[in-house]
């Protein structure tokens, strides 16, 4: 039975090695904040962090993961939606339907970790998630806001 380190807890996952991490998170760990959109790593709705890097969990079999690799989902990004990215998203009213937004937020948090002051080109390259409602311009503005620490200053 594979062991996974999810949001700081090591859990036994009762699933086949080939099961995508997305479905182990949603169905075994009960963490449904990570969404299914395409199943082929195209849309990014399933983005989580593995050791800090953004990963599309729908295409990552759990058998390829070790218990010492730290998986963080949207539920584990912060205890109370207080991550700078989440605060910027709230300040700018970014989500519409919201279904893609967990993946967007995880991708943005990872981007800011590697590039604390991203340019628009960095955002173009780092944010390849699909949003059908069309929140892209607010996503871009919120990433810049989070990078500037604007939310913290406002607070």
């Amino acid at each position: 039975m594979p062991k996974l380190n999810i949001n700081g807890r090591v859990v036994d996952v009762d699933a086949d090695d080939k099961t995508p991490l997305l479905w182990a998170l949603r169905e075994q760990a009960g963490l449904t904040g990570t969404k299914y959109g395409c199943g082929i790593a195209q849309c990014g709705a399933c983005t989580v962090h593995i050791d800090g890097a953004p990963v599309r969990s729908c295409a990552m079999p759990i058998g390829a993961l070790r218990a010492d690799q730290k998986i963080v989902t949207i539920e584990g990004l912060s205890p109370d939606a207080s991550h700078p990215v989440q605060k910027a998203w709230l300040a700018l009213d970014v989500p519409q339907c919201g279904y893609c937004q967990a993946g967007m937020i995880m991708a943005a948090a990872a981007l800011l970790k590697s590039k604390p002051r991203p340019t628009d080109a960095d955002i173009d390259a780092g944010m390849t998630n699909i949003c059908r409602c069309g929140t892209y311009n607010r996503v871009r503005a919120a990433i810049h806001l989070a990078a500037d620490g604007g939310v913290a200053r406002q607070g």
Partner: protein
Amino acid sequence: MDADTLELSRRRFLVGSATAAGGLMIGLHLPFAGEALAAELPPEVNAWVVVKPDDSVIVRIARSEMGQGTLTGLAQLVAEELECDWSKVSTEYPTPGQNLARGRVWGNFSTGGSRGIRESHEYVRKGGATARMLLLQAAADAWGVPVAECSAANSVITHAGTGRKTTFGKVASAAARLTPPANVALKDPKTWKIAGKAVKRLDTIDKLSGKQVYGADIRLPGMLNAAIRDCPVFGGKPRSFDAAKVLSMPGVKAVLRVGDSAVAVVAQNWWQAKTALDALPIDWDEGAHAQVSSATIARQLEEGLEAQQALVGNQVGDARAALASASKRVEAVYSYPYQNHATMEPMNATALYTADRCEVWTPTQNGEAALAVTADASGLPAARCDVHKMHLGGGFGRRGAVHDWVRQAVLIARQMPGTPVKLLWSREEDMLHGRYHPITQARLVGGFDAAGNLNALHIRISGQSILAGVAPQNLQGGRDPVTFQGLSASGDGEIGYTIPHLLVDHAMRNPHVPPGFWRGVNHNQNAIYLECFIDELADAAGQDPLAFRRKIMGRHPKHLAVLEAAADKAGWGKPAPAGVFRGLAQHKGFGSYTAAVAEVSVSAQGKLKIHRIVAATDPGHAVNPGQIAAQVEGSFVYGLSACLYGECTVAKGRIEQQNFDTYPMMRIDEMPEVETIVMPSGGFWGGVGEPTIAVAAPAVLNAIFAATGKRVRSLPLKNVDLRRA
């Protein structure tokens, strides 16, 4: 309505509220049980407003929230009239079953056609105003003073003479027992303090933390999961399937036929169900349409362009005669493909069937329609069914008119009585079994008189009728009025030009691919046909596109006002940055006036970049300008994704594109700046979620012509070589 029904309704609301607060696991509630809970219920002042003792207010929302902001806008309208403290407002959905039991007290649940606010604003405002009057009366009764001396503001009631104060929460129970007044006056929108303001959405916080429960996230005790495969060829059905091959796979509980055309695997969890379904041998009888292709459909539509018989949508003067005698004629043929809604959350529904009851949890744009399908598929009366509406991971029209996935879920649950089953479509199933944007072509012929004035226009549309596929009972003498959206003589989709001889007609040609209402509906292609062809006519006349339009828009001042506003802000007529070219378009849809100017460049290699969009919209009244701006921006993503990439092709009777690798859409790197002008002129209520989509593509296509000299008449752009000739 009897007291028992009311009490039942209230208990169900309590369950609903507890669910919202309690996270993902949704407790099964037992109808007609839980008497002890009733005493804890906060008072329902009236159907729209519940006030708790701590002064927090719950506003009931009948329409569905799918990202478009209607939930917040409707709450603003109720709160405005209620005079409550906006910071204490939350919302909840009544169920369609409760609506049925209470004589449709919440009216229509349908959330499509950009009607969520514009069709219900009056009665929801009256709901808020009535609740305020009941609360005032209760306070006046307690104080023994005339109600006329009392006023409400920010959830506080004040008696003018004595300065005494109380709060909504303290008098709500008493207010709930009063008889509502027959007549209530509504505020002048000019005095609005909550409505009309860009307040923040009420539904954001849970969308940031993964707590928001979508239909796909539901978990019920003892629930199983289903994956389904419908015959990939529309109209086909399974001849046989070999269940024994997969029944021993991990977690698999059952392999079921679903209706005439589908097979489902039910398993402990969804990944197991999908894995087994992929391994299940199914022998399909592909039916009568297995040889249909995009090429055969195109020939069917091309024939319609020339057909003698057609259904008339708009007629002024005698266009045929005027064209026959025109000094100069311009002619062009355009086409628009099938497209999938591709909501980010695939179709899903969870159903629990027992011998005497059926309940469904699903994201739906029309809870009442979902309830009707639940009743029909379960064989139970609607009064013994209910639908629990979940937030939608996108709707765009897919989740409104046809609840095919709800029918499937109920048909599965009927075969497993007492066990809740969640049906979730794979993305591939969602792509292959959409209700597609209808396919059409159009031949446009314009005629100038000897003085060079546009004297005649004939728009012949050939292709698919949505109503014929979705609601044939609504055809009018065989004619589909929805086909003519944006080209009509008057009304919500009134054409913005005065042309002495005009004919708009439709040769209905219905291929076997099922059509549906797709965000923007027939405005999308009609605006491309009209607005790109008007540009062609302007070019033929040697005139600037804006100047040419002005001359034929004199009797359409509101259409012209948004066009002028967008053109002015974009700097139309002034030099654009080097290498950047502009195009414009205007259109009226869903009761609102919209216009856009696009700025694009096209590289020597034919690569398109859309730099900037300036968009203007006049929706009459603006309930939340911040959300209108969000909808306008989003409309460009939806409309330009369609323009750049959106195409479902048909081969061997089935759709070829099965996932986002072959059905791409716009991403952030292609997103232009969008500058939005919200210019409500008052006096009418127009929609917001869809109208702007219509101008997205034609503004860009007209800018591409300015940049390259190429007229793109067939979408999507991914198929077009934009290198200069």
